[in-house]
């Protein structure tokens, strides 16, 4: 249930998107999770980190037509979930199961799955929702930017 919030910095940088929301990163490798958090920060986005799908699902709930994430660090706040980066191979439910669950809750939510598995191995975990981009680790940040920001915009 590791949760932390990157310091909120609202200064815009070139090409940055400033949306009052938060991106969920679900990966059990803290180094990857942390690096992705810093990357989001570059674009003025905040990140919430979870090491398992169950942990993220517990922290979110539906509010009107959108999902909000409960952040239990510091002052309890609730922020709209605007996207998620999911590792496939997680303790507990898989990234694909998590993607399906999130799709069910919020059909428009931008999602990207990242995995170290090859396509043939990935097939064993079942199919992700149709429009979701699966990136093979190690991935180029440009590809992740394309995948996620296209959706964010």
């Amino acid at each position, binding site marked *: 249930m590791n949760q932390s919030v990157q310091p909120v910095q609202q200064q815009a*940088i*070139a090409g940055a998107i400033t949306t009052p929301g938060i991106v969920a990163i679900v990966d059990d*490798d803290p*180094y*990857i999770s*942390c*690096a*992705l958090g*810093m*990357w989001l*920060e*570059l674009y003025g986005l905040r990140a919430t980190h979870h090491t398992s799908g169950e942990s993220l699902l517990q922290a979110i709930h539906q509010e009107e037509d959108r999902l909000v994430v409960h952040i239990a660090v510091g002052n309890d706040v609730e922020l709209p979930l605007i996207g998620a980066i999911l590792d496939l*191979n997680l*303790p507990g439910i898989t990234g694909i199961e998590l993607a399906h669950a999130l799709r069910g809750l919020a059909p428009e939510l931008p999602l990207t799955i*990242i995995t*170290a*598995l*090859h396509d043939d*191995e990935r097939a064993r975990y079942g199919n992700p929702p149709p429009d979701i981009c699966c990136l093979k*680790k*190690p*991935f*180029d*940040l440009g590809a992740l930017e394309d995948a996620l920001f296209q959706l964010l915009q």
Partner: protein
Amino acid sequence: MTFFDVRTAFLILGLLYLLLPTVAWIVLARQRSLQVALWCGGGLLVGAGSILVGLYNSIPEWAYITLPAVMFRVSFLARIQSLRMDLGIPWPCPWMVLAEMAIFLTFTGIHYGLQDHVLRAQFNSSVIAGLLLHLAMLAWRIGRDEQSPSAKWISYVYGLVGTAMVFRVLSLTNGGGNSNVLNEGFSAQLLVLSLLLSSVIGHFGYVGLALDRSMRRELKMTADRARDEENRRLGAQIAQLDRQRSLGELSASLGHELNQPLTAILTNAQVAKRGLQSGRFDTAQHTEFLDKIVHNTQRASQIIERIRSFIRPSTSRSEPVDLNIIVREVAELVADDAHRSKVRFVFSANTGQMLVTGDSIQLSQIVLNAFRNAIEALKQARQREIQVSCRYSNERIILSIRDTGPGLTPEALDQAGTPFFTTKSTGLGMGISISRSIALQHGGTLNLTNADAQDGGGAIVELNFPALSEVNL
């Protein structure tokens, strides 16, 4: 009818029977054994006895009648025992001593009690004839079994002496005759002649037989050595193949594991680059990115090192190996597999090193096979644990690897370890049999059992190795 002087012949016979066993003993310096000693010692006794017989009337009566009779009997008994030991059917020694004592008592009874010297000679000659013919029979069996002409010659010559002895008994019966062998006619001459022949052929034949045997033994040893060498080489190759196969199966998960630090490196580097371009991060933050890149590079190189050390083509090494370290290393090697199958390792606390002598890679292979089998077995299990304990007991180190799976079926328990038997849909079924042969090579054992059902069940692989002696635990 006299061809030669029997007394002289007995003296010559005595000298030959003293000389030739000695020569045989010297020649067979490298083949010496109890059997050779019995054969040569028996010969010396015949020699001494023959000289005593030849000294007829020059020494006290017991020394040329009673004593040589004992010496002849004992000598032939010794030779019989020598051949019986070769054939693997030795007579019990107390039994032979008792028999000789009974014969001795009967002999002295007839000689001193009944004073019947002819009967005494007949009795003694019959006993010796029996011994000689038995000796001939044994030599013939050896000649047949080992296809040795030398042994057959021994058989013929003692058969001849035995027959001459029977002939003497008969001539004593028919002619009444003289109980003293030196004063008898043809039968005594035949006997001494055959004995002379036996002195030569008996020893040359025996030396020939012993040399034949040692040559055969050396040939067999060379062949065995070559076969052992071949087996070891094949064993190493199979083990190497098994390792490569394991590694092939592990490669997916190792690749996955290696991708984690690589992803962290790439992401940190790209974020840092973007940060530099936008001027967004300060120096401290950039230093942090670089630190993480360094750290993850080391992490990746450790993973590569683990794989590399496992595929080193190994000629068997023999060095102190700490089983505790092996177990941890291999657990790391399969960590990703275990993680994916949601299997947890439980190491029971143990103190200090668990040192055995052997090849660390081969020992890792046993542990790897056990872990992978356990992970496989736990796929359907509710509780997924691999419990590992390593303990020292009575100069042995016992490593036990237990899973909380369904355990082995009775059929699998019975068959596991038979090459190519497998309950898995994948795999060659060689794992346990390779593990077992590696354990054997390390002077250890590998046992497969099931834990008590009330204890939760599950399969247990128990490895038992001799502890390294210099270590005090």
